[in-house]
């Protein structure tokens, strides 16, 4: 391998990047767009769930419960329904996501038998919001239940030591306030790197074919490995600039805690970028049209990084077969590392396994990509 030849390709490719400012601007705009859109657009924190109440009793006790729902920051009371059909309509047209139905004999059974049952009807078309809403609703009802119990005991002249026999004292580590942004943003960094890397490199070889400069390139003494290095190094630098933009936005704009070290971040980002650049390059060699190559490369990097990396959907909740598939997704290792670096401040030793896997992945991809290019015209 001759450095002189690598340099020649490198200079040519860099000139091409510089003289096509539109593509360069796009490569630098993608991280900004993605970080802002996903940073603000993706939030699983549910608050102000629209709620309607159907109070069939209309007593003081039942209205007290309705007021408790109205006062909760997780719900916003849209109104009280007058009949069952109205409840159904409200859920059907999406005006409310949750309906509380209080039976007509609510306070009577509560006084006589000590048991009151309240019905919650949830719009479960959005399953995640529905299960979170159910959790918040049962907390509201539990609070009400305790208050009623306390009153009843005091009325009977008793005193009480506790209303909550078992109290959960929870401590949350790594993302203390359970802000979903803190868990999404590190994953977005991986997603941006996947998109940018694949976008940039998938065009390099296909472009030579489409413009008819391939014959020229083949007639030069350049070796496949040299060609690949020269072609990918400029994009590697562009990708690393993108990574810096992402990191700066994450830490300074979105205030996601970064507890790891910068060298670890730079090293692992370099590894992941190498993997996606090589995938893009490989596709570019195999598919000789620019549009086809960038579509396939995007599909190969962006889709798995979105769905199979654990970026937004937890891997351990997937079926075993799909879990096995995630091991061949490079994003999986990178997302693990990023979450470790951002939120946990995990030491090197703890991330050794994913880093090793990613390194191995990068080496294999370099070899595959370098071998894919053959100096023939057919």
């Amino acid at each position: 391998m001759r450095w002189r030849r690598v340099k020649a390709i490198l200079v040519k490719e860099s000139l091409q990047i510089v003289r096509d400012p539109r593509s360069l601007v796009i490569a630098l705009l993608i991280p900004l767009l993605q970080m802002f859109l996903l940073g603000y657009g993706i939030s699983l924190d549910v608050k102000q769930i629209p709620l309607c109440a159907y109070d069939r009793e209309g007593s003081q006790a039942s209205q007290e419960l309705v007021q408790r729902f109205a006062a909760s920051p997780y719900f916003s009371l849209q109104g009280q329904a007058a009949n069952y059909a109205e409840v159904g309509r409200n859920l059907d047209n999406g005006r409310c996501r949750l309906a509380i139905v209080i039976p007509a004999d609510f306070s009577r059974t509560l006084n006589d038998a000590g048991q009151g049952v309240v019905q919650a009807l949830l719009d479960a078309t959005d399953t995640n919001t529905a299960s979170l809403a159910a959790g918040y609703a049962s907390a509201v009802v539990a609070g009400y239940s305790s208050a009623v119990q306390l009153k009843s005991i005091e009325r009977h002249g008793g005193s009480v030591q506790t209303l909550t026999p078992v109290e959960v004292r929870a401590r949350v580590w790594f993302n203390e306030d359970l802000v979903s942004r803190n868990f999404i943003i590190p994953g977005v960094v991986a997603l941006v790197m996947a998109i940018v890397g694949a976008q940039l490199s998938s065009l390099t070889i296909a472009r030579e074919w489409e413009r008819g400069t391939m014959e020229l390139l083949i007639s030069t003494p350049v070796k496949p490995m040299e060609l690949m290095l020269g072609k990918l190094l400029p994009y590697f630098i562009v990708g690393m600039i993108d990574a810096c933009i992402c990191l700066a936005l994450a830490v300074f704009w979105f205030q996601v805690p970064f507890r790891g070290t910068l060298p670890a971040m730079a090293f692992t980002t370099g590894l992941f970028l190498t993997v996606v650049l090589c995938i893009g390059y490989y596709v570019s060699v195999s598919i000789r049209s620019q549009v086809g190559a960038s579509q396939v490369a995007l599909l190969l990097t962006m889709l798995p990084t979105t769905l199979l990396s654990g970026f937004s959907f937890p891997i351990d909740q997937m079926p075993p077969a799909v879990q096995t598939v995630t091991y061949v997704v490079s994003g999986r290792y990178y997302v693990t590392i990023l979450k470790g670096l951002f939120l946990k401040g995990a030491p090197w030793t703890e991330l050794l396994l994913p880093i090793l896997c990613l390194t191995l992945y990068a080496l294999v991809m370099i070899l595959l990509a370098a071998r894919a290019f053959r100096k023939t015209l057919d």
Partner: protein
Amino acid sequence: MLQRIYHLLLKEFLQLRRDKSARLRLLVPPILQMLLFGYAATFEVFNVATVIFDQDQTQESRALVADFVHSSRFKLVAPASDRRAVQDAVESSTAQVGIVVPEGFSELLRKGQTAPLQVLVDGTNSNTALIALGYVGQISGSYGQRYALDLAQRTGRTLGRPMVNVQLRERYWYNPNLNSRWFFIPGLIGTLTLITIVNLTAFAIVREREVGTLEQILVTPIQPIEFIIGKTLPFFLIGLFEVAIVAVFGMLWFEVPFKGNPLVLMLGTSLFLLSTLAIGLLISTVCKTQQQAFSSNFFVLNPMFILSGFSFPISSMPDALQWLTYLDPLRYFLVIIRATYLKGVGLDVLWPQMAALAALSLSLFAVAVLRLHKSLD
């Protein structure tokens, strides 16, 4: 006129038939995405990796631990013999939840006082953590209630005053088992047609322009409006075909129910396809090369996807973004799809979405045709 449109139509289909890789790109991504979303995208929380350290070692504490172990929500992954082991397990991500039943737990319970249960949660995935914490609360809460009731009966303290308790019974409408697939698969109809049709339309025209065949077409007697119809009609048909594939695959493979009226969905789909065609045409008027078209598509489609509410609730977005979502045709279409699929409602409920989608589609299409008309003359 019809004859000229027919010939252009024929040409587009011939082109598609001869381009094997383009045909594959039409079929493979939808099926791949559907499989991925069907199997990998889930918000459900089961079998959370858990470690429990029972420091109390009494009948009471063991009963509580058994409640956790026997629930489908938690799975014991490793034994823990001290607090340190629990912390280590959470720190190293072996477990996502660590529970410590402290010494003296049962003593407090027997005295009728509040017994603390210490829980350590890995909050890295805030959503799972939140849901898991909810389950911890439910299990320990119901254990506590049962215990208190039992204690009161045994000691006879309830004489004269009943225990009072209010329960919440949840019923999940439209998706009783909270199956995430029912949420994602119908939504895919919208996102997949959006991506495919915008791409196809934009590239079809930009390619003609780049290769230089656009001029050849323009010197034929064809009128601009005939050209536009001939160029968009095939993609409209392909869009319908794509919707049919996803719908059939989703129903047969993933068993997503369809409760509504197919005609309502059909109407929504046609309106939505009109706006995807318009967006594709608009992109084609500002791009000279296929490469430019590709990146423009990305910049237009990606925000549309994220702002549509496909996987993340619009109501949780900041106000400024929520306003932007009103400009996103996919937003309305997703409401229409999910409502016809799961809720089974008709036009009487969906007319506001239909009207908004129609207004948006027609104005987009009008602008697109005007711009294209100009660029063709």
